[in-house]
């Protein structure tokens, strides 16, 4: 099954699936954070995504920008810490890029995700190899774009992004953290997967799964 576009319902499904995945993996995320951070990434992400789904159910939206600006604001105001503003800005910029549409085509989705990444970098100033969520986001979007050029299929691109995300996540383990709380550990951060990288990989798992469903 191939897809050219992603609908408002599918985008909502993406967020719902992401909420379910972080909830399933809450202890895993927190465990990763307790090794090199402050043991709250799992509870931060579930608190945030629960708030997001609560808001979506309470006040349904009609446009993609409305959806993602709401998601971003909710994350920003309910999570705190480092991940709140980072994930929040990611979704805010997706909304701004998408505009007041009810469907996104493949290039539109690619552009929106790229804008989201731009927001994460603008906020967190992470670079490749800093051992952050950037190390999943960037290769995942590169893979998405490259796959799209060849197959012009949004589902296939999402699957490519997810496998790049997993690789990126695992590749954070040997790195020395240079951003965020883990950076205070210096060399002692080596050998642990970054918790934000792990949750971002779940974001692409959710996208791939939701697009494969239809």
């Amino acid at each position, binding site marked *: 099954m191939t897809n050219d576009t992603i609908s408002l319902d599918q985008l909502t499904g993406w967020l719902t699936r992401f909420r379910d995945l972080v909830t399933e993996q809450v202890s895993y995320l927190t465990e990763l954070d307790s090794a090199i951070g*402050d*043991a*709250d990434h799992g509870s931060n992400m579930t608190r945030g995504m629960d708030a997001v789904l609560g808001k979506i159910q309470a006040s349904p939206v009609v446009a993609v920008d409305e959806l993602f600006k709401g998601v971003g604001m909710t994350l*920003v*105001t*309910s*999570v*705190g*810490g*480092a991940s*709140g*503003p*980072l994930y*929040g*800005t990611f979704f805010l910029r997706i909304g701004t890029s998408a505009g007041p549409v009810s469907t996104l085509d493949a290039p539109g989705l690619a552009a929106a995700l790229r804008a989201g990444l731009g927001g994460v970098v603008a*906020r*967190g100033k992470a670079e490749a190899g800093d051992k952050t969520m950037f190390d999943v986001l960037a290769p995942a979007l590169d893979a998405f774009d490259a796959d799209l050029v060849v197959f012009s299929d949004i589902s296939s691109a999402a699957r490519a992004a997810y496998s790049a995300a997993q690789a990126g996540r695992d590749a954070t383990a040997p790195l020395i953290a*240079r*951003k*965020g*709380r883990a*950076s*205070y*550990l*210096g060399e*002692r951060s080596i050998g642990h997967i970054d918790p934000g990288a792990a949750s971002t990989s779940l974001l692409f798992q959710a996208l791939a799964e939701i697009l494969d469903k239809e």
Partner: protein
Amino acid sequence: MKKLVNDPKNVVAEAVAGFGAAHADIVRISTEPIYIVRTEAPVAGKVGLVSGGGSGHEPLHGGFVGFGMLDAAVPGAVFTSPTPDPILAATKAVDGGAGVLHIVKNYTGDVLNFETAADLAAADGIEVRSVIVNDDVAVKDSLYTAGRRGVAGTVLVEKIAGASAERGDALETVAAIAERVISGVRSMGVALTPCVVPHAGEGSFTLADDEIEIGIGIHGEPGRARIKLEPADAIVDRLLGPILEDIPFVAGDEVLLFVNGMGGTPQIELYIVFRRAAEVLAEQGIEVSRTLVGNFTTSLEMQGTSITVLKLDDELTALWDAPVQTAALRWGR
């Protein structure tokens, strides 16, 4: 876990309510969202000062709201930075038309949430400047990392920048003075025992009966070295060495010496620490012209201390001496 709390989830809300009731002459509190603001805010024509961060470091920051220091403080959950919305609300509440300065401790979460709040405030037409406090020499600074942590030196930044704002300085000037304090202040701490986050219910780290952690962070983050317990004087020397080397402080310098308690250390021990620190500075020809001793930037019930040294000049000294009227620091009125 043995604590004087009711439901761990309500610790911050209840403590802020108690704080507001105890100091109604100095502060008002907002409960939705939670922040603490001085009674007379906004002061027309005065630069507003806002700080905040995770709770558990009291009296930082709420204890420093009042005349001559902060206009508002925004407490997050214990050891968790607040989200931008209460920061934005506090920023609006203190804006007297002359702009607002955000004083932020250098933790990624704090920096990002204050930054977002500053953007939102700017969108509402409020001029916001931010300074980042990063006085902890236990962590190596580098352009390529999150840099040094902000610890007890924050109190000195808040006092001196607060006096600058109170005397009517423009936002530009207040920010520049805060930066001057930041560039001249260095700290390092030691933990004898861990602290217990109420909703976690157990120690944030463990130390053997004869171990101490040199270079501890104020959330119990690991420091430079875990060593066997030593006499107080030897511990002071370990803390003061890296502090003095860092800027460096040299003979002839005039400084403020600040011995801070981590929350659970008896005052009698803080003065034993002060005694040795003053002795070392005297030996090196550094003149201690101002002092501060007590629990000002704490880590819940952690036993331990931190030493902070600030390079003074005539203007910073005058601003330090200027009247201040807050719950935790008060003189001159």
